[in-house]
């Protein structure tokens, strides 16, 4: 009796062949992989190519529509902004060779360089900027960042126009941006905004090429169609997979750019990204690893950390927790340093005010709040709680479902337990969470977590959140005195004077008699894994921007 069927053998043979093939697969490198990767610093490598991880797929590479970090970073390197920010976050000329503000602070003039051009050969003109800015503000485009332009005369009105009902074209003409000549761009502001020039370093202020947009419509950002004017050009964009950029030799300052090519993967999963880095497939990974990986990764020589312009905080619904003393007690009880050391583990900076460290004028602005001691002060907190007439001892703590928030919430829940406050953590899916926060926040929300990352480098971007009408104020906090101060700051041109006013505003929130509508916890840091060959020159600035023109691969 024969026991084995030939089919059986065939199938088993195929299966074993497949396994053998899998085991023997060669150690293939992708095209354009890095050259030398040894630890010694110093000399330039022969092959100046790196592979980075951009993170998530950019929803759009149109400067008018881009609203996330990946888009911003790619745009920052394929386009040429009017100004860039130096290490101290002061604006320095880029596409604009000079800029100046009028005495009353309401008119800003940029003079463009003569040698700037598009990849199709056309010169970059002031008209390009006028076209682009008006396009971003136009109601038809539906740009998220249109609000960045609201400081320009007529922009808010144009953006709020309904094309079906009103004459939007007339409003577009009234917008305060015009090309005095081919190389001179004049901007008229509603109030003096001393930070405007710095704000122009943001990607939403980039110019787009009208010909490309007219010809290709929505598809103008595809590599075959896109027309750019920056140090690199977009060579390949395989959605959700790769974005590769190559050096453009005709850029105005091409000689200073060492990298010839930057290959980009798009790996959004933290663990996969770390594994790809450790397998040598990436030179830089800036996707944050999960907290449990942090401890191990921090010990590696490739770990690098940068300060970020952002604040992680807990907002308090002041209509539910009405007594400022209770809010102060809750702030006192939070063991910030302990949370940073044991939970988040990325060497964040404990927050002692709302405006983060690194912001120009920080020393004058920061209130060094008595309510935010680094290690928490349980004794004082308990004392203060006793002084509260009708404390709310049963509160809800809302968080969203991204990694890390729950661990922080649990730590704070334990701290408040000692104060006699029972907190129920309510975790929600992101979109539902945002709906709950409003503003105005859902009645059930007592405390909620959020973070704020700066758009531009002036404290007003942070402090205006707590004005009565702010669309980002979910605390129901409304203080006319505070609003008046912020309004005054908007009209104060002198930097030092303005920083003083910011300091006063922070005092209203966090000083001795502070209202404490929010409990600041820490200031953000960005952490990356960088191969030794790029570690020296690869930098991320406070605004999470990466300047690839400065990166050099060393031997």
């Amino acid at each position, binding site marked *: *009796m*024969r*026991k084995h*069927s*030939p*089919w*059986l053998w065939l*199938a088993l043979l195929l*299966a074993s062949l*497949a396994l053998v*093939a*899998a*085991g*023997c*697969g*060669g*150690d*293939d490198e992708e095209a354009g992989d890095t050259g030398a990767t040894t630890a010694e610093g110093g000399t330039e490598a022969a092959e100046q190519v790196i592979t980075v991880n951009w993170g998530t797929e950019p*929803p*759009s590479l*149109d400067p008018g*529509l881009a*609203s*996330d970090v990946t888009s911003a970073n790619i745009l920052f390197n394929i386009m040429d902004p009017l100004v860039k920010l130096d290490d101290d976050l002061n604006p320095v000329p880029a596409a604009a060779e000079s800029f100046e503000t009028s005495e009353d602070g309401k008119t800003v003039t940029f003079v463009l360089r003569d040698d700037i051009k598009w990849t199709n050969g056309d010169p970059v003109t002031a008209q390009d900027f006028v076209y682009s800015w008006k396009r971003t503000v136009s*109601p*038809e485009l*539906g740009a*998220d960042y*249109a*609000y960045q332009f*609201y400081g320009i005369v007529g922009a*808010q009105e144009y*953006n*709020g126009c*309904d094309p079906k009902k009103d004459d939007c074209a007339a409003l577009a003409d009234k917008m305060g941006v015009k090309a005095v000549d081919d190389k001179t761009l004049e901007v008229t502001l509603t109030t003096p905004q001393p930070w405007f020039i710095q704000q122009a370093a943001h990607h939403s202020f980039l110019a787009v090429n009208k010909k490309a947009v007219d010809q290709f419509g*929505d598809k103008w950002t595809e590599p075959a169609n896109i027309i750019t004017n920056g140090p690199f050009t977009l060579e390949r964009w395989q*959605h*959700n*997979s790769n974005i590769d950029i190559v050096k453009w030799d005709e850029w105005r300052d091409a000689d200073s750019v060492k990298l010839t090519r930057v290959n980009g*993967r*798009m*790996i959004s*999963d933290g*663990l*996969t990204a770390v*594994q*790809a880095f*450790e*397998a040598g*497939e990436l030179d830089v990974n800036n996707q944050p690893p999960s907290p449990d990986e942090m401890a191990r990764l921090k010990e590696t020589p490739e770990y690098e950390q940068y300060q970020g312009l952002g604040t992680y905080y807990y907002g308090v619904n002041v209509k539910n927790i009405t007594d400022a003393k209770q809010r102060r007690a809750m702030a006192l009880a939070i063991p910030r340093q302990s949370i940073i050391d044991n939970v988040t583990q990325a060497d964040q900076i404990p927050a002692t005010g709302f405006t983060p460290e690194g912001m120009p004028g920080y020393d004058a602005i920061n209130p060094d709040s008595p309510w935010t001691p680094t290690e928490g002060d349980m004794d004082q907190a308990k004392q203060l709680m006793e002084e509260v007439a009708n404390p709310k001892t049963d509160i809800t703590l809302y968080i969203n479902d991204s990694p890390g928030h729950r661990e922080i919430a649990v730590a704070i829940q334990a701290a408040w337990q000692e104060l006699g406050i029972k907190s129920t953590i309510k975790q929600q*899916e992101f*979109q*539902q969470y*945002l*709906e709950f926060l409003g503003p105005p926040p859902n009645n059930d929300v007592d405390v909620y977590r*959020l*973070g*704020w990352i700066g758009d531009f480098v002036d404290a007003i971007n942070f402090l205006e959140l707590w004005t009565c009408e702010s*669309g*980002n104020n979910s605390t129901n906090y409304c203080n006319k005195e505070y609003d008046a101060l912020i309004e005054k700051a908007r009209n104060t041109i002198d930097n030092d004077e303005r920083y003083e006013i910011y300091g006063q505003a922070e005092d209203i929130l966090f000083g001795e008699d502070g209202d404490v509508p929010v409990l600041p916890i820490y200031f953000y840091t960005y952490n990356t894994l960088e191969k030794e060959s790029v570690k020296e020159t690869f930098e991320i600035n406070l605004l999470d921007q990466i300047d690839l023109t400065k990166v050099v691969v060393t031997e």
Partner: protein
Amino acid sequence: MLKFIVRRVFWTIPVLLVVIFLTFIMMRQIGGNPFRQSERAVPEAVQRNLERKFHVSDPWYLQYGYYVKGVFTFDLGPSLVVRGREVNDIVKEHFPKSVELGLYAFLFAIVVGIPLGIVAALKHNTPVDYAAMFFSNVFHAVPSFLVATLMIYYISLKAGTLPTSGWSSWEHKILPSIALGFAPMALFARLVRGTMLETLQQDYVRTARAKGLHYRRVVGLHVLRNSLIPVITAAGPLLGFIITGSFVIELIFNIPGIGQYYVTAVNARDYSVVMGLTVLLSVIVIFANLIVDILYGILDPRTRDARA
């Protein structure tokens, strides 16, 4: 047979309409704002502009009408979140990759699972049987993402033989296909073994053996053909599941397929992408089931007669 096929294809339309309607209602029920993707609030004017542009503020019956019309004209509309991309483009670019992954996983499951089940059945109650069943139980129970992560760790990182993630060359495609195919492989092995054991007991098998037919011919031709029926029953919806359920594998191996898009779109409330993909996947499942039924007719004459 032809009448049967035509009737089934025809029934696809009402099923699709119900699917669209249910998905539409469910997406609206969960609320959320497709135009807010970050913690930063959207200014009122901008929100209005976007709602106007994407018809999100139109009354619900108008929106529903747009979607239904879109589905039947094969124009699934623009993505609300990924500006400048049409759902059709997203499908064209990413769907083939998911199908490829699903097919390789399916092939792996068949090529390894069925022989495994056959061997286990033929060597019933021997150590080979026990080993095969233990192996298949373990891989049915262990979640695919765990298998995936372990494989990446040992094969890619430690041994350095295969890449950790991506979908560019044939080396990239091996690990994900195996990771996704393990559980179906285990399922097939168990199904084949079970049915074969049962079939081997049948009278007609004994008759064939008594007539003097070679054991191999009996097994290969008669027993196997009848044992494959439950496998095909399982294969139909399984194919649909593999294509949709590959999200986790796609995420871990960074494969630009449709699975990632689907889940991201639901979280981001990208209505058009969710609707479009749901319709697409429903059509696939419906046709997979149709093919299964047709195969029945070929493999099992009994059902053919019953139908006629």
